[in-house]
C-alpha cells in the first residue's frame, strides 16, 4: 500500500500573503489543524480550495499549523506595546508558517510514512512531487503539493484493513509455530462455503512469526465453517471462548 492510495487530496489551502485571521477562520470552520501553504496561482477557480485530482497543481511553500497561530497570538499579546507591530490577525501567513522540510512522495509505502510520523512526532506529512521548470537541463525544480497524509488517514486505513466498514464476524485462527497452513486451509473451507473474506490480519508476535490470524468473514452464520474447522483440527477462538 502506498501513500497515494490513502492520502487526502481535497485540500483547503492558504497562500503566503493571506492573513492569519483568515487561516484561523479556516481551521475553525473545517475543524482541523494543518493548512498547506501554496504559492498563489491565478488558475484556481476557487482560491483556497484545491482538488489535486484536477491538474492545477500549485507550488508547495510550507505548512501552517494551529500551533503556529497560537504562538503568533501569544507573541502578539506580549509585544503589544510596540507601536510598529500590527495585531497578529492582520499579519501574513508567511511570517509564521514553517517549511515542513520532512515530506513524502506519493509512491512511498504507507508503513514507512507511518514510521516516519511516529519517529518524528508529526501529525501530518505533506505529499509532494517535483517537476522541472523550463526546458534547460539545469532548470529549477518546482515542488508541487499533491496531497496531505495525516494521522486520521492512517487510522482510517487501519479500520479499513480490519474490515470495519463491512458487516462481518471475527474469528481468530491459531497458527501453531507460525505455520500458515491452518490459515490456508481455513480460507479454502470458507471459499467452498461461499463465505466472503472481509479482512485478514496476521501480525508477528513472537520470534517474528504470527501466532494467530484474525479473520473477518462476511457471514452471520459461522457454524458450518466452524464445524469444518473442528473436523480439520484447526484451533480457533470465537466470541472469547477458546475451543480445543
Amino acid at each position, binding site marked *: 500500500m502506498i501513500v497515494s492510495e490513502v492520502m487526502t487530496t481535497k485540500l483547503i489551502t492558504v497562500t503566503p500573503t493571506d492573513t492569519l485571521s483568515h487561516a484561523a477562520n479556516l481551521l475553525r470552520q473545517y475543524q482541523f489543524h494543518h493548512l498547506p501553504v501554496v504559492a498563489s496561482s491565478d488558475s484556481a477557480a476557487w482560491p483556497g480550495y484545491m482538488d489535486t485530482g484536477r491538474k492545477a497543481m500549485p507550488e508547495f511553500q510550507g505548512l501552517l499549523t494551529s500551533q503556529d497561530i497560537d504562538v503568533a497570538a501569544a507573541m502578539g499579546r506580549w509585544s503589544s506595546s510596540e507601536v510598529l507591530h500590527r495585531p497578529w490577525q492582520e499579519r501574513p501567513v508567511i511570517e509564521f508558517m514553517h517549511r515542513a522540510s520532512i515530506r513524502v512522495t506519493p509512491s512511498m509505502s504507507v508503513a514507512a510514512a507511518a514510521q516516519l510520523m511516529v519517529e518524528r512526532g508529526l501529525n501530518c506529512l505533506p505529499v509532494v512531487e517535483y517537476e522541472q521548470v523550463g526546458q534547460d537541463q539545469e532548470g529549477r525544480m518546482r515542488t508541487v503539493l499533491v496531497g496531505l497524509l495525516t494521522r486520521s488517514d492512517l487510522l482510517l486505513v487501519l479500520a479499513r484493513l480490519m*474490515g*470495519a466498514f*463491512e*458487516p*462481518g*464476524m*471475527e*474469528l481468530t485462527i491459531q497458527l501453531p509455530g507460525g505455520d500458515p497452513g491452518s490459515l490456508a486451509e481455513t480460507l479454502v473451507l470458507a471459499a467452498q*462455503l*461461499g*463465505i*466472503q473474506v472481509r479482512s485478514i490480519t496476521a501480525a508477528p508476535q513472537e520470534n517474528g512469526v504470527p501466532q494467530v490470524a484474525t479473520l*473477518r468473514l*462476511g*457471514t*452471520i*452464520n*459461522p*457454524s*458450518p465453517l*466452524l*464445524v469444518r*474447522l*473442528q473436523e480439520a483440527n484447526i484451533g480457533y*477462538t*470465537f*466470541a*472469547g*471462548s*477458546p*475451543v480445543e
Partner: protein
Amino acid sequence: MSCKARLLFDSDELHYDFGPDHPLQPARLVALMDLLETSGLWQSSNKQQCLSSRPATLEELELVHTPEYIAAVQLLSQAHLAGPATEPQSKDKVGIRARQDDSRAELALKYGFADGDTPALPGMHEVSARIVGGTLVALSAVMGVPGGGSFASGDERPAHIFHPAGGLHHAWAERASGFCVYNDIAVAIAHVLRASEAKVLYIDFDAHHGDGVQRAFYDEPRVMTVSFHETGRYLFPGTGDVLELGKGVGRGYSVNVPLQPYTEDDSYIEAMEALLAPLVISFAPDVIVSQHGCDTHAWDPLTHLSLTMRGIQAQVKLTHQLADMYCDGRWVALGGGGYDLYRVVPRAWSIVWSEMSGQALPVSLPEEWVARWQPLWLGVEPQERLAQQVMGKSSIPASFPTTFMDRSQDFPAQPRRWTISSTNRHTTALVRQLLLPPSLRQAFPTLHHRSPLAGLFDLLHLQGGATPSRSRSLETEKGMLLLRDFCPPSLIERLTIDAGLRAFARLPEREHQLLLSIARRPDCALSIAHTPSGEIVGEVTLAPGDEWWEDLENVYEVGIEVSANWRGLGIAKNLLAFALDLDALEDLILYAMGLSWHWDMEGLGLQAYQYRELIARLFASQGFIEYPTTEPNVHMEPANILLARIGSRVDQRVASRFLSHLLSTPNLSGYSL
C-alpha cells in the same frame, strides 16, 4: 383492550425460504401459528385479531432502497427462463444462457447475494415486498396514516400490532445482508415519516446489531434507534459500538448497547431497565416499533447472549408498558432473528402476542402441539448440538420444553458472571452519560437497581449452600464473638440488640428495626458481631450514598458502631476489616462520615477532636483517607469528618466526579447560572 391488538400474518410470507440447509426456516412461523391456535391465544377465524396486508409497491421500497438494488433483486428473483439444460440446445441459446449467468453472478456479488447467508432465490422480490408491505400496513394502521387500511371508526383502529414475519433489520439501502433482502422496518418508518409529523422510537432486541435500520436513519433526529445486542467484537455484523451516536442533526439519536457474550437475564434486564424509560422520556416518541429477534436465547445456535424466556418476557413487558404510558399505546412488534426453530421461536413470540393482547400466558404447552413439533426438533437435534459446541458454548441439557417459560435448572449459571455483568454495567453507564441529558440522569437514579453488592449477594447465594454469608469467630477479652456478613433478615430477627448499641437510633428496639430494614434491602450489606448467646454488639453497614451524591455510581456509605459495653477490645477494627473483605471492594467508592452528635464522648471520656482522631485511625487501617467536603452534615460542625476509599478498579471518570462532588456547592446546582 384485547380487541385493540391484532396479529398480522399471511401464508404468502412463508415463501421467505432460503432452502433446507439454511438456518432461517419458515417452519418456525408455522410452529408459532400452530402454537397460538392450539393454546387458544389467537384464532385465524377471529377477524378482530387479524389484519390483512398487501405487498409494498416499488415506490414504497424506494423510500429506503436504491432503484438499482430493487431492479437487481427483481432480476435475480426471476427463475431461469430456460429449464435445466437436459435437452440439446442450439449453440446460440447456450451462449445467451452463459451470458445471463455471468451477469447474474455479477449482480449477486455486487448486491450481497453471493455469500451463503442470503442466496438469490426465485420469487424473493415478491415475498420480501410482501413482508415489507406487512410491516408498513401495521405501522400505518397504528399511526392512522394512509396505507394502513380503513377501519369503521377511530375506536376500531388497533393500537398494538404484531407482525412476526417482519424485522429484517440487516438489509442496507443497496445491499442484501444477514438473511435480509428488503428492510421492512426502515421502509415502514420512512413511510410514516413522510406521511406524518410523528417521531418513531425503534427498539431492537435481536442479538445482532440492527445495522440496516441504524444506517437508514443515522442522520434523522425524528427516529431514535436503540439496539441491545451482543458486542460486535466477534459477532456479525461487527458494528453497534456505544460511540455510534448518529451524525449531523441525527447525533444522539442512535443508541447502541453492546452486551458481553454470556450476559444472561439479570444483567440484560438491568441494562434494559436502566436505559429504556429515560430514553423514551427524553425522546418523547409517538410510536414504538420493537424488533423481538429471539436469537438472544441460550439455545440459539448463532449467538451467545444466553437469555431465557424470562429475559425475553421482560423485553416485551417493558416495551408494552412504555408504549401504553408514553405513546398512547401505539406499538408495532416485529419478529426477527431466532434460529432455534421449534423450541424457542414459537414460545418467544407467543409471549409477545399474549402480552400484547393482554391474555394470560398458559403454563404448559398444549400436548398436541408438543407431539407435532417435538419429532421435528429431534430430527435436527444432533446438528443443533454440534452448532452449540463449535460456537464454544457449554453443553446445555437438551430437551424439548413442555412449558412456555423456561425452567431455571436447565440453564446453569455461566462462569465469570460477575465480570460480565460489571462490564455491561460499565457499558450502560457510558450510554447514560453520552445520551441522556443530565436532568434525566438524575431523575432516574441507577444506584438502587445497580448495586454491585446486590450482584455479589446473588452470586454468593447461587454458589454457596444454605448459608452464603461468611462467618468468623473473634476471641476477645470479654469472650468469643461471631462475625457475620450479608446477614439475612431472619437472622437479625432471631438476635437481640445489646443495650449499649444505641448511637444511631437511641433505643435498642429502634436499632433492631433499623438493622432489619438494612438487612432486607437488596442494595445494602449488613455485617454484625454478636455473642454466641445472640446479642448484637457491633455492626458495619454498607448502603448506597444518599441523594446528595446524585447519580454517582458505586458510591457507598460505610457506617460502624460498637456497643458501649464492648469498647476497647479491637472489635471495631476487626469487624470493619471483615466487612470490607469483598470481591467488589476495588470497584467501589466507599465513604464514611463521622458526625459528632452521634459520638459517645462521655462514655469514652474523650474530647471531640480525640474522638475524630480515633475514627480517622480506625478507617485509615482500611485505606480510607480524609477529604475536605461541603457535604451538608459534615459541614455543620468542624469536628465532623469525611473519610473515603476509592477502589483501584473504579473508572477514572467516576473517581474524579466523586472528588469534585465532594467540594461542590449543592445549593447552587439547582439554579442555572
